[in-house]
């Protein structure tokens, strides 16, 4: 069983903790040894010989062993902690890493429940097996020292019981596991049903759902019954290993007594059997079967891949922060040369003025300034891209070709579910294309080059695709921490405050930043509105070094003015390329080029071309606003009432 193999590896890894645990276990087991021995001596040398004082003395020694043993017990817990807590830490690390990488909500229950179950069952396993080992050793040594003949009577049935237990362990563990799986299945099933009670009632599907739940309950009941029946085997193990020695001791007593075993030794042997061996065996038999399988099940859930290595499955997710960033460090620490005021003017407040032809120097380190001039290719180049979610699914994107030059502003439009977010996910490296290639600033997003490269190479070559683009999804990520931490999340080091403030002003976060109390203020995502969270995510992306910004409906919770301000800020980043999955027509009209996604086809063009060429685009813009075609230039831009900024883009 892999659990046991893993357990052994773990014990080897924590040799010192194991040694300490063993040492204290010996102290604890002294009691098991002395209880029977002292009793035997107290009888033989004391009470049966008429010397009450000697007898009491031996019993006193036994009492002392109890107290010393109790101290040993106490320290044993510390030893178990030294073994269990690192494992728990490792599991927590693993679960968190997996949750962060895979975005799997199941990681949460893994963290709060399954890790705890693993911790408890693992500790239980260590406790029980160790306790049996040392208690049995203590008792057997005690028996031997009373009279080796006693060992001859007690050891064989004990060994037989143990062997039987070991033999029954695999089938018992299988049944235990079947039961646990059935139990989890019930929990999963009910977890899906309970939030949908309204839907079930509305559909009149109560009977059907009840039947479905009933089937799972019946499966668990069957598993529990089978487990209970196999439980008889445990009783047999106990009877053979623990009770049979008692009977044998009595049956062979005449022979033992005739061969020099003293009455005290016989009583001592009976005490060893009933008070040390039987309870220890009981704990072992009941504890090991249950916790072993429970631990196996839980560990399989927590660590689905047998070797728990740190690398994620998706190559694109691997890239961490570059380990050494000497080339960028000066950039980061240098004071921003564009002042706050200058940055502010980069975005015309009304959005109506001409775009600054020569943007004020970008205070952010761009890849161009990072020492590796990525001169190859356009900002985004998509070649023959095809993607399907699975072998049984129709492709979402088929044979798409797209080239976005540097500094361009592209809007992607189409009905929901058509594949716009999928395209963004592909460019961002979240999804692997079925075929075709994607390059960001000449760097491949997928494939070997983007994946299997040792970390030490990173400083030696140009930035990876991962560093070249930043994705801002619809669901903005804001974590509990300071605002500065949130904003600087995509930067290797801390971001100077002036730069934070300048970025906030450019994107439109300044109001919220003031309200919260500056960059150092703590942020609690739960107290922020969806729009405020989006502003934080946008500013974070703005501060990143990535020249290609992918806004996947990243402004859907903002009002049109705020959206415009944010989008213009991104468009104004020098060398900055923006791809926007448009949420409003205003957003699409700001872009020079529009990609219309219609099923598997896609059409690229500017507004006028598309109105002519794409019926879907006409449909979209038509249903967006009927007023738009009637009067393309209403008096006020960013009109709140109609929700589009109808000024056409330069």
């Amino acid at each position, binding site marked *: 069983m892999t659990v046991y193999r893993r357990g052994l590896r773990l014990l080897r890894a924590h040799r010192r903790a194991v040694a300490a645990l063993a040492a204290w276990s010996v102290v604890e087991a002294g009691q098991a040894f002395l209880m029977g021995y002292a009793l035997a001596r107290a009888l033989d040398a004391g009470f049966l010989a008429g010397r*009450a004082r000697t007898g009491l003395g031996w019993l006193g020694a036994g009492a002392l062993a109890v107290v010393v043993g109790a101290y040993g017990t106490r320290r044993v817990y510390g030893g178990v902690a030294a073994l269990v807590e690192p494992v728990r830490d490792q599991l927590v690390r693993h679960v968190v890493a997996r949750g962060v990488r895979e975005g799997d909500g199941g990681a949460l229950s893994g963290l709060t429940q399954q890790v705890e179950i693993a911790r408890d069952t693992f500790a239980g396993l260590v406790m029980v097996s160790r306790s049996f080992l040392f208690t049995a050793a203590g008792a057997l040594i005690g028996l031997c020292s009373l009279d080796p003949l006693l060992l001859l009577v007690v050891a064989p049935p004990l060994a037989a019981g143990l062997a039987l237990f070991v033999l029954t362990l695999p089938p018992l563990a299988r049944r235990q596991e079947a039961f646990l799986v059935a139990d989890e299945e019930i929990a999963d099933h009910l977890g899906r049903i309970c939030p949908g009670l309204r839907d079930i009632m509305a559909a009149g599907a109560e009977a059907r759902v009840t039947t479905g739940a009933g089937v799972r309950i019946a499966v668990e009941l069957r598993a529990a019954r089978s487990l209970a029946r196999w439980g008889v085997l445990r009783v047999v193990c106990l009877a053979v290993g623990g009770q049979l020695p008692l009977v044998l001791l009595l049956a062979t007593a005449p022979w033992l007594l005739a061969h020099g075993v003293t009455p005290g030794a016989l009583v001592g042997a009976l005490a060893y059997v009933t008070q040390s061996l039987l309870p220890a065996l009981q704990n072992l038999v009941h504890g090991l079967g249950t916790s072993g399988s429970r631990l196996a099940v839980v560990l399989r859930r927590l660590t689905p891949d047998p070797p728990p290595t740190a690398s994620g499955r998706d190559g694109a997710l691997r890239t961490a922060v570059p380990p050494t960033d000497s080339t960028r460090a000066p950039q980061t620490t240098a004071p921003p040369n564009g002042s706050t005021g200058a940055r502010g003017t980069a975005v015309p407040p009304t959005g109506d003025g001409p775009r600054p032809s020569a943007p004020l120097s970008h205070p952010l380190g761009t890849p161009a300034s990072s020492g590796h001039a990525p001169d190859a290719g356009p900002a985004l180049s998509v070649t023959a891209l095809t993607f399907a979610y699975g072998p049984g699914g129709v492709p979402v994107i088929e044979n798409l070709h797209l080239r976005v030059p540097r500094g361009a502003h592209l809007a992607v439009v189409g009905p929901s579910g058509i594949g716009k977010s999928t395209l963004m996910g592909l460019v961002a490296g979240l999804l692997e294309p079925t075929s075709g290639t994607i390059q960001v600033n000449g760097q491949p997003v997928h494939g070997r080059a983007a994946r299997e490269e040792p970390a030490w190479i990173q400083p030696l070559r140009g930035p990876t695709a991962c560093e070249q683009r930043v994705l801002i999804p*619809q669901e903005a990520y804001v974590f509990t921490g300071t605002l500065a931490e949130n904003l600087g999340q995509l930067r290797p080091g801390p971001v100077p405050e002036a730069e934070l403030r300048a970025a906030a002003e450019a994107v439109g976060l300044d109001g919220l930043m003031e309200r919260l109390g500056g960059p150092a203020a703590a942020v609690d995502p739960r107290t922020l509105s969806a729009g405020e969270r989006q502003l934080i995510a946008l500013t974070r992306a703005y501060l990143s070094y990535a020249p290609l910004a992918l806004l996947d409906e990243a402004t859907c919770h903002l009002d049109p003015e705020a959206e415009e301000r944010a989008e213009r800020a991104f468009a104004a980043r020098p060398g900055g390329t923006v791809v926007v999955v448009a949420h409003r027509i205003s957003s699409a009209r700001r872009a020079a080029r529009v990609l219309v996604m219609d099923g598997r086809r896609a059409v690229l063009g500017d507004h006028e071309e598309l109105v002519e060429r794409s019926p879907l685009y006409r449909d979209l813009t038509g249903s967006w606003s009927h007023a738009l075609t009637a009067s393309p230039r209403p008096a006020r831009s960013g009109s709140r009432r109609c929700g589009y900024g109808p000024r056409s883009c330069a």
Partner: protein
Amino acid sequence: MTTPADTRTAADIPAAPRAPLLRAAARHSGCRCAALCLASTSATAANLILPFALGRALDLLLTDPEGARATRWVLVCTALVLLLAMLDAGETVLGATTNARVTAWLRRRLVGHVLSAGPRTVSRFGAGDLVARLVGNAAQAGTAPATAAALLAALAAPAGAIVALWLVDPRLAAVFLGGAPVLTLLLRALARDSSRCAARYQEAQGRIAGGLAEAIGGFRTIAAGGTADREAARILRPLPELSREGRLMWRVQGRAAARAVTVAPLLQIGVLAVAGVLLVHHQLSVGDLLAASRYTVLATGVGVLVGQLSGLVRARAAARRLAELLTEPATPYGTLHMPPGQGRLELRGVTVRRGGRPVLDGIDLTVPGGGTLAVVGRSGSGKSLLAAVAGRLADPDDGEVRLDGVPLSALSRDALRGAVGHAFERPALLGETIADTIALGVRAASVDRVRDAARTARADAFVRRLPEGYATRCTDAPLSGGEVQRLGLARAFAHGGRLLILDDALSSLDTVTEHHIAEALFRPSPGSSRLIIAHRASTAARADRVAWLEGGRLRALGPHAELWRGAEYRALFGAGGAAPEQCPKGSPGAAGTEGDESDAFGAAGPASEGGPS
């Protein structure tokens, strides 16, 4: 026919059998419990006789090893040990199967009840708590009958042991009883001090879990930014504290265990010392000493009794939590079938109170057969509740809802649910596969029916793109909020019926998709009527009439074009000063305030984050 008064008495009925839930469960496994009680009591009896027999056998073996009496007592001991093993086996099987049976019985009964009580249980308890009760508490409560059956034996063992000790020699019993209070005091002291570090441990764990929950929500951002390692490191910052508190917990537990393991052996040594002195004075035999030592061990088994009692208390507490679920009454259905009709819906004086406050207040509304009625209003005005009452997902406190002249409460479940279809803002994806979830309300749905419904709901295209198409498991389908909404619509279309209720079921759709679905939805259909909770002016504009709710009352009722003349009505759609002519019927000209998605296109809708509020 059920009047509201009936409903209220129905609410009171299940409150009564609160206590008897466990009794009913025990009755369900009555024979087993009796057998268990018998087996465990017999085992206790055998356990109490065994030390005496051991003692006699030992004495006889020491005096006359080959004698027939000695052999007889050895045989008695052997028989007792064998009997004990058999009883133990019986007890193990009986106890475990009884627990399993009772748990399954409780779960079946409660799942059935929760399903028939419907969404009220969720809104009262919360889905997570509900699952916890049905899974965890049912398993705990399921152990109650078997534990109770074994209680007599658990009580008899220490009591019988003390009596037996007294029979061996009263002075031994006195030693034990003198030392026992120390035992209880020490055991009690250790229960206290472990809770503080446990709380700190959980607090650190909670901080890690909180950070992880946030990061899982922002998974796309993190993955695209390649910052997973940094995020993980940040989230794991409280880990050293967790580790520290964890070790502390073990230490506290170790101290407690050390005390626990000291007391019983020391008591035993005390008894043995007195017995030894008595042995020296020939007032006891070696066999008596052995028996006394065994009885002392049995008597300290009072801890087992305490454990069993606290287990029973826990099981009863769990049963109480289960019984709380029963206080939410099952929805009673009538027996009538639907008469022929076109789905004429009438609400007469419908009032619903929540927490003593009327949430719907004397609503009178009629949707003519084959007609469409849109319901609009600010959030909190009672729109969703109106939709629920109209389809009998909730019952009104006062007033009546009729469908084609028949009160909803008089209809049989099949007649009612067959006649009324629902679609929701956030449908739950139930069933194994996407096809299952669309066919939820249809018995033996054909593939064509499912596909047609999906096509009408504009869901067919994206479903076919899923990894396994219609056979994709719901849990594996990467769906946006708008896509889930369309599956819910497909479910309603597949279901059919003479009344279709849409509770904000178009809110996350882009305008093009909404337009196509609305075409199908508002197509004149003489056989069925529609009640549509709407957020967008475009939707309201297509309906025959619009009911405007405000604070649970009907503020106005009329065609959209008529109501649109009022500025306050326009303000509902965030279209403050827009002239009425600019937003003609069929055009979503009135557009959004922040958060509203009325002008959205390609908007998948907020998948997990709060939508328009």
